[in-house]
């Protein structure tokens, strides 16, 4: 529970959304909750993306990121990068 969280970009396969979800935001939220269940602090979603990627960004522990990467419908889980002005 003392693990540090970092931001990850989670890419989802939009077409793989299970039928029980009404929209993708709901599916993303459920996916996020499923990897942080049982932890003292829930993983937090920062953004849900829909136009340039299907997925979301969230604060995850390394373990949560790893678990997320193994879930059905998850294409990739990439750690956040810091860019600089040129």
């Amino acid at each position, binding site marked *: 529970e003392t693990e540090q969280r970092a931001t990850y970009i989670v890419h989802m396969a939009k077409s793989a959304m299970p039928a029980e979800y009404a929209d993708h935001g709901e599916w993303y939220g459920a996916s996020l909750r499923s990897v942080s269940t049982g932890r003292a602090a829930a993983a937090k979603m*920062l953004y849900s993306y829909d136009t340039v990627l299907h997925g979301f960004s969230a604060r995850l522990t390394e373990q949560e990121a790893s678990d997320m990467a193994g879930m059905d419908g998850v294409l*990739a889980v990439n750690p956040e990068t810091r860019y600089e002005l040129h």
Partner: protein
Amino acid sequence: TTRTPEFLGLAGSEGLFPQSGTGGDVVVGVLDTGVWPESKSYDDAGLGEVPSSWKGTCMAGTDFNSSACNRKLIGARFFNRGYEAAMGPMDTSRESRSPRDDDGHGTHTSSTAAGAAVADADLFGFASGTARGMAPKARVAVYKVCWLGGCFSSDILAGMDAAVADGCGVLSLSLGGGSADYARDSVAIGAFAAMEQNVLVSCSAGNAGPGSATLSNVAPWITTVGAGTLDRDFPAYVQLGNGKNYTGVSLYAGKAPPSTPTPLIYAGNASNSTSGNLCMPGTLSPEKVQGKIVVCDRGISARVQKGFVVRDAGGAGMVLANTAANGQELVADAHLLPAAGVGEKEGTAIKSYIASESKPTATIVVAGTQVDVRPSPLVAAFSSRGPNMITPEILKPDIIGPGVNILAAWTGKAGPTGLAADTRRVNFNIISGTSMSCPHVSGLAALLRSAHPEWSPAAVRSALMTTAYSTYTGGAGSPILDAATGAAATPFDYGAGHVDPTRAVEPGLVYDLGTSDYVDFLCALKYTPNMIAALARSKSYGCAANKTYAVANLNYPSFSVAYSTANGEAGDSGATTVTHTRTLTNVGAAGTYKVDASVSMSGVTVDVKPAKLEFTAAGEKKSYTVTFTAAKSQPSGTAGFGRLVWSDGKHTVASPIAITWT
């Protein structure tokens, strides 16, 4: 900007670019540090109603009302969740939780791309004139994704997500970082979807030059922009006690420097630190520099900070000497004390004088603005260079544009140096970087999109690239030079060359590309289905098992051949050939184009088939192949360059060629 419209041939050529109707409806989205909406560069006089297709918004926040937008600045949003999640709550006494630009960079870049014309613009009298963006009738939407602590990819993606959904036609990103493969690079990911939705994405190449293989933003669906100089300088003279006079640059405009000779000291001799020559904070001994002009070496810390360090230590002035990393390139800054930047040669001479003289003295004379400087453009020393380390078979950068000593609008929250100690406030500032060249090209792309709304992002880029020049227009064919070395620059430095918008509007032929072409490119790179799906947002894109993919077949407007010595290509056993296939689309009148191709590398030949292409109608497509044959292997690191040009006598459709051995 002042001067760049003239330098690019845009002044008085408004008729080439229709600016009414759909032409004025191009929206340039700028992802940067926000906007200073009070700047006259966002005056909307003469602009029609905001396009009905526009879905953007003007987000209110700290010191920023939703009424800050108008018919020029039609959108302003901010994205800070990633930043604050990583760095903690922002210090709202230092930065605004709103689209407000606290830094100046975003105001500078967006006004460069599409700022309205502002008469009597200048910085302390320097670079005076009418400042305007490259597409002065285009609309601007700003997406603040960069903060004092940097630009975080979750925020950048959110900004790109919004910008594309809002209806931007061009995105301008003067930022970069790392060199991850495309499936992990957020800018590349966002740009792919933008491209797919008919949005051109222009990015800065980076300021990591002049070293080779230093590029950012090299995905082939991104237009990658390096930087060149203008034909404008801000000369300053360093007159030494021995009578020698050296020319440098300065934007100093404060209290007049002493007209009498002032004691001169090298910072390396005024410090106990091993890096004292760099005038890093806390390294100068006040008792040694008090009242003297201090010679500092360029590097590591910001140029303007060195001036502040000298002033803080009691120095009377500063000579900022380039090192080998910068060569003779002169970048001007609005220093807080009398200062002049000088080239490496001049710096070496001045330091030699100090070493040889018991009581060296100097006088700094700031001489104002000079135009019609030749030769120009030069490739900026700082501009990042190829080869492309992610995909060596794609030549990057694509193009260069003005990026040195560029005047454009500035924030009211920071002084021209950006230093906290700089309490001056200016409406315009002069700064340098590929950050400055990128929005030039973004604005020019908006102009082309206004003139040719039917062109794809790739067609617009192709037009910009194939009409670029790599020799001086007024220099009898002399090659563009590299400011870092003084020698001829190469396509690794300037890509296709320097942008020439008046030719780009009528390129004759274009190399077009679409989503499926880029997916084929990813297949050639052996990306997994998941990587492709993450990039392309769909599982429906994939690689066919029975199809052969090759990077060389990507219909790119340039050629890069990367031979590998390790793999024995063109080894002792004989010649090796690499064949590229391209397809040209006619966007002009009927015509017969003939090819001329050559490479300046012994043992390498280039053969184009067919050598003649006949187009009878607009929209017609014709393919050709280029075969590069290397007779023998070359040592690793060997490079050669050339050019392939199709011409019908009226148009020249030119592509750079780079051949490397790794």
